[in-house]
């Protein structure tokens, strides 16, 4: 089946963003094909605003908390109740930050930037519980998301969130802590198999003294730094942490590692042509790690639009939910229900499973998660309850009681106007196939008409569009982009 113009556009909008917004769809469709990518790029050209959910007074109160648990000891001037209140305030702000960013993914014009920020958020996975640190780190990621990878790597490596998460405050000349050095090589730059245990030990020495101050800003503690000679990846010298990052960026392997991971995220998780990713990796390296140029190369290629790359990616829980919200604009009565939804589907922003981030692909699909994904459209249509018991997890603080059973109602109102308007003028027989083409990235000649007939309401055009939309979303096909 040849790839239609509509399918191509939807493909681009799903992969370089969170899917088409129904109310803008006609405008996109009217654009010349050559204008699609530049328009997306332009939408993300501006420097992003700092997403701030905390107030100045809060910032003053929690200054100096490396890990949030330390509030107990860091602030012995406070009484027990005050500390508890502060801890809960932090937890609430962390939830707000999650929901604020989620809202941005739904509504922002800068779709490409937010999509790439989600990629980097998983790449530079950090589970720090201090909202101020997470706020700063998110800003660094959103700022550099389309810029230079070297700048991004340096900003993240010097963020309090990452330094705290990977224990580099404890990395001192007398007692090196290798956690940070290991993850920088294994997960952020080279990937496994491209360094030795000795490289890690030596690099850890170079990172000694890297830490952050009471305000969460990077500091270099000279007296804790090991000034001796180190040998990292065959180079020797009295290296600092910056030197090691530069050495890592000088490795062509770093470009190849990043490009491969990005190809899986943006293009195809299962079919990866070796020659193509090698070529892209070389280009990325030769460009000095220009992320924007790399994206240009991917999204203006012909292979990106080949059938084998369309409809083959299992949407992550955040992609699925944000995509639904872009198709069906909705007003939530209780935005926090979205936290439970993220949890149940297996992707809570700011809570990656570990430093390796979310594995993605088929790993998103376990039995319970798939059942919930298929029920989801019916749940939102019926203002249904989300009856889920959260997994026990010591970082579990996204609004749930540890071990308690929680019920939330996804109470919301769907604005159906854009959808019903879009399909108002179609012939009776053409409505269902047209809806399927708009909602599914798997091209099918006909949606299973017999089934849709039994579960849709044809009493009016509006009812038909509403019920069929929900049914088409409650399918395995809709899980793919």
């Amino acid at each position: 089946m040849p790839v239609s113009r509509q399918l191509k556009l939807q493909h681009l909008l799903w992969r370089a963003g969170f899917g088409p917004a129904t109310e803008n769809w006609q405008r996109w469709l009217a654009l010349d094909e050559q204008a699609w990518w530049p328009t997306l790029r332009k939408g993300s050209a501006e420097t992003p605003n700092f997403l701030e959910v905390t107030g100045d007074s809060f910032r003053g109160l929690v200054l100096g908390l490396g890990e949030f648990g330390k509030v107990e000891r860091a602030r012995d001037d406070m009484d027990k109740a005050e500390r508890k209140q502060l801890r809960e305030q932090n937890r609430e702000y962390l939830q707000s930050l999650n929901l604020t960013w989620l809202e941005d993914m739904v509504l922002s014009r800068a779709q490409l930037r937010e999509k790439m920020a989600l990629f980097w958020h998983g790449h530079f996975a950090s589970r720090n519980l201090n909202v101020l640190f997470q706020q700063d780190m998110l800003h660094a990621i959103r700022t550099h998301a389309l810029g230079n990878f070297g700048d991004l790597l340096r900003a993240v490596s010097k963020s309090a969130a990452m330094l705290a998460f990977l224990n580099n405050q404890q990395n001192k000349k007398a007692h090196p802590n290798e956690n940070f050095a290991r993850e920088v090589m294994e997960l952020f730059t080279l990937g496994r198999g491209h360094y030795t245990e000795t490289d890690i030990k030596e690099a850890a020495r170079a990172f000694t003294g890297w830490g952050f101050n009471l305000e969460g800003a990077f500091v270099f503690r000279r007296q804790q730094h090991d000034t001796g000679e180190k040998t990292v990846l065959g180079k020797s010298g009295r290296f600092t942490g910056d030197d090691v990052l530069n050495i890592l960026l000088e490795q062509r392997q770093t470009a190849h590692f990043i490009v491969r991971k990005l190809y899986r995220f943006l293009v195809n998780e299962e079919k990866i042509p070796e020659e193509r990713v090698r070529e892209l990796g070389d280009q990325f390296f030769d460009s000095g790690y220009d992320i924007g140029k790399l994206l240009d190369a991917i999204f203006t290629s012909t292979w990106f639009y080949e059938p084998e790359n369309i409809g083959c990616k299992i949407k992550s829980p955040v992609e699925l939910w944000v995509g639904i919200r872009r198709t069906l604009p909705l007003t939530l009565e209780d935005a926090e229900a979205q936290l439970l939804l993220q949890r149940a589907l297996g992707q809570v922003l700011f809570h990656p499973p570990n430093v390796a981030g979310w594995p993605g692909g088929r790993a998103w699909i376990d039995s319970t998660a798939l059942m919930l994904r298929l029920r989801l459209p019916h749940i939102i249509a019926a203002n249904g309850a989300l009856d889920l018991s959260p997994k026990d997890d010591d970082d579990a603080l996204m609004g749930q009681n540890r071990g308690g059973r929680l019920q939330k109602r996804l109470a919301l109102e769907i604005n159906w106007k854009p959808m019903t308007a879009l399909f108002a003028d179609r012939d009776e027989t053409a409505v269902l196939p047209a809806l399927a083409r708009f909602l599914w990235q798997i091209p099918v000649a006909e949606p299973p008409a017999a089934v849709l007939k039994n579960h849709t309401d044809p009493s009016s055009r509006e009812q038909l569009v509403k019920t069929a939309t929900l049914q088409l979303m409650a399918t395995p096909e809709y899980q793919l982009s």
Partner: protein
Amino acid sequence: MLIKRRSFLKTASLATASLWVPRFLQAHSRPGALAPNGKILVVIQFSGGNDGLNTVIPVRNDVYYRERPRLGIKAPDALRLTDEAALNPALGAFKSLYDAGDLAVLHNVGYPNPDRSHFRSMDIWHTASPADEYWPTGWLGRYLDAQCGDAACQSPVLEIDDTLSLALKGAQRKGLALQEPKQLYESARSPYFTDYAAAGADHIHEDSPVGYLYKTMAETLASAEYIFEKSRVKPSPATYPNTGLGKHLKTVASLILGDADTSVYYVSLGSFDTHINQAAQQKRLFTELNDALAAFSADLKSQGRWNDVLVATFSEFGRRVAQNASGGTDHGTANQMFFLGGSLKEKGLLNPLPNLTDLDQGDLKFTVDFRQVYATLLERWLGADSEQILAQRFETLRFV
């Protein structure tokens, strides 16, 4: 009589379930053939790298106290097992099980060229691969492959959790992750799914991502009904602690008591990644573990099923011998495994405590390959062909 009723239930639920099964799955459907010997394995994963030296404490070892001036647990505080060894004070139920002959400890379990990254070492434990190889399937998933072949097994290997671990993913078969049988069952009963799954499967290629989704859906639905039924036959009457692990083990007990044909249950507890302030964190987790296992073992004993069950614990690695500067310990290598149950053939401490004077760069040297333990569990407990599943012959141990 019992056998008749059980096979009827299997047939009945399969008949209903077949409505869900796309054509490419229907051809080979037959009731599962797990647990040929009626034995049940419960795996408890300690995620994050549990500190083994503060779990079974070498109370007569000067090196231990010298390397851990702050973190070392003093002999009078620990629960004495032998002259040399004592348990962490939070593990009182383990001590009782030890006294009753229902606990065995195997020290120094690990593998050559240990990896100190969590996810890689966990990968190695899950897949049972050598440290320099990457395998896409898990050891219990391959057990499932071997037991079910290409048939649709009725009740697969079960993980009580939100997500399915790599350990339970085979080449053809995957285990099933669930929090609660009832919840899974109710999700599965929408008539829309029934109609849709029956009609929608025709344009699907089995090995494509969408085919994978259909397949997962079909298997989930076929199992959901069966599992729910089994969970209600004889629900555990016992009181379990209101913790994650407590609830999970209660679900496991209910399925065991209901004669579900599931031979492996998998649960996790964590995080044991105690770089900082280890004492408090390990105590909290051990308390959860201890109380849940106390309830589970008492429940199964009172129902006469404790002899059919073997609980095995593991962690992706142990921790360094020396404490670090932050009141914690960093990633290490070899570690102990616990085995609990009513049918142990060897009890107590199965081998010598770790040698703290013969270290590899500050880390313990392993003396038992964890794949020997897997081979033992597969072959001597579950009655499976360990060589096929582990792709290599490993000498088995004698504790079961």
